[in-house]
């Protein structure tokens, strides 16, 4: 049907893109993770599992990984708790203001991540907006130190940043629920609350799963928020990877940790996709 030249013309660019920007880097990452660093700080190109052993042996790595997962889990929970009601309100009750509210949710995504993270630094710092306000109204005498440079600050910032990512798929799934199903439920005697739990929520589960996956995976791999706002107690696994590729100059260990993270994320995506399939009825 299409000419050979046409097929080549449309196939080659994406293939090239995938090869150069995905396959080659991952292949390099894979190789590096089995290499090692000599005392003279050069890469030794001989195969070894030492990097993986190191990752599993040193407490701080696994602790940081678990802390990252714990932070990501909290971010996911809060994003869903904030994103779901927002999506529900927009989809079912916003009426003519729907488009306006939708834009208001989306606009923060156009603002640089860095700006938003810095904004929280300005708000949470010891002479920041929040502490100044609290002291001004005499709720506190001294600045609250735990606000900034803590896992709390990281969770707060990541929740702010990733709530739209949780919101969007939930909103899409709610928008796809035929409204006559809601009417049918009311018609059959179900109150609005019963209708929500028996019809609307079950049908929005694929969106919730997709939103949760976004929030969890994105915040698990985040390194800027912990870097700017986390302090020593808020370090996450990506910060360790960054430091291995940077100051520590241990690319092989960094690659091994990255690869473990990658496998973890792929497993999560696989799981979430299967669950979504189970809960979709179209």
């Amino acid at each position, binding site marked *: 049907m299409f000419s050979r030249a046409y097929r080549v013309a449309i196939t080659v660019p994406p293939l090239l893109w995938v090869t150069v920007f995905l396959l080659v880097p991952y292949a390099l990452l894979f190789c590096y993770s089995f290499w090692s660093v000599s005392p003279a700080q050069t890469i030794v190109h001989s195969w070894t599992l030492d990097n993986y052993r190191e990752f599993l042996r040193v407490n701080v790595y696994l602790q940081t990984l678990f802390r990252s997962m714990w932070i990501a889990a909290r971010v996911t929970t809060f994003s869903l708790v904030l994103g779901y009601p927002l999506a529900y309100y927009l989809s079912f009750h916003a009426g003519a203001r729907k488009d306006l509210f939708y834009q208001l949710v989306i606009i923060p995504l156009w603002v640089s991540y860095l700006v938003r993270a810095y904004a929280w630094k300005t708000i949470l710092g010891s002479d920041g907006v929040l502490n100044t306000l609290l002291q001004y109204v005499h709720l506190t005498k001294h600045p609250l130190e735990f606000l900034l440079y803590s896992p709390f600050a990281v969770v707060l910032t990541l929740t702010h940043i990733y709530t739209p990512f949780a919101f969007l798929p939930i909103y899409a799934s709610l928008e796809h629920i035929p409204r*006559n199903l809601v009417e049918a439920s009311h018609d059959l005697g179900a109150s*609005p609350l019963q209708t929500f739990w028996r019809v609307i929520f079950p049908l929005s589960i694929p969106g919730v799963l997709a939103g949760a996956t976004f929030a969890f995976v994105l915040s698990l791999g985040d390194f800027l928020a912990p870097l700017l706002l986390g302090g020593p107690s808020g370090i996450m696994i990506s910060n360790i990877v960054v430091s291995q590729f940077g100051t520590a100059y241990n690319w092989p260990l960094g690659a091994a940790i990255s690869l473990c993270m990658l496998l973890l994320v792929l497993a999560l995506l696989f799981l979430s996709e299967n669950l979504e399939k189970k809960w979709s009825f179209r």
Partner: protein
Amino acid sequence: MATTTEPAVARSAKPGSPEPLLSIRGITKSFGKNPVLRDISLQVAEGEFLTILGESGSGKTTLLRIIAGFESADSGEILMGGERLDLLPPYRRRVNTVFQHYALFPHLTVADNVGYGLSVAKLPKEEIASRAEQALAKVKMSAFANSKPTKISGGQQQRVALARALVNRPRLLLLDEPLSALDANLRRQMQVELKSLQREVGISFVFVTHDQEEAMVMSDRIALLRMGGLEQIASPREIYSHPATAYTAQFIGHTNLLRCEVKAGAARCNSLSWRVALPDGPALFSLRPENIRPAASAPSNSEVNVVRFRGKIQQQAFHGATELLQVACADGLSLALRAATRENWQGELELEFSASDAVPVQESTAERGGS
């Protein structure tokens, strides 16, 4: 309660005119500046099959949605069994709906769909199961109890939707063009089934359709809506043989509209003339094509009010059992007539109709200002 002597009850229970199940009084509705329903009043009797018939945009679906509670009227009230229905939210009304596209819950099995209403009413599990089973048996869908609605055909979904509504034993069942998505054969079959099911369960049906033939086949009474106004409400036979307005005559069945001038007890339309008991002035008559027939060979009973005329056949359309002919009279009048099937109708014919079959009709209500 039958022995109560309360005057209110005694008055409402007049013999011969039982209290209607549903009373719609002066319902008006606009969407923005668009009037959709203009002062609709009608009643549905216990066990009646009432069809709301109308073209798209006539307001028939809106009226149904107001009864179900999905829309609220701007003014007017609805009573069911003497109590205000329109003040209740839809989930408190003892009314169930069969939706146009069935609206089955895709995440529930057929049996759970049917049991939904009983389940939200928190009935015991065994009762839900047995009643859902019975309802499915009634619509011949027992074999599909554990299927998901997406895995069954449109006609089967239709039956499940019906079972899901009927299992709640509503006092009134609303059906919003439930057959419109089915193909013609299945549709005819479902019409018959639906009608006999309605007789069997004895629940009042309010059935919305745009298909006049469907309305004629199924209904006890037809309420014809036009541009938000109630054009006529009557039994199918009555509405067909005595259409109140020109619109009704044309919408239900096929008809010839004769624009006449009445003078001294005689109606005159071009060269045709017959005796009528109407005051002088312009008048409009509906004459069904099947009431025009080839004239009997001898004009023996000319004293009976029979109108005879000659017509030239212009067109012939085969309709199976009958032929629809278009004949031109000498004076330019063109009439449709239904005649027995014959290979080739040709040439000029001597035709006649009984003056009593020419039914005087009014111009449509909408043209008179929708009062």
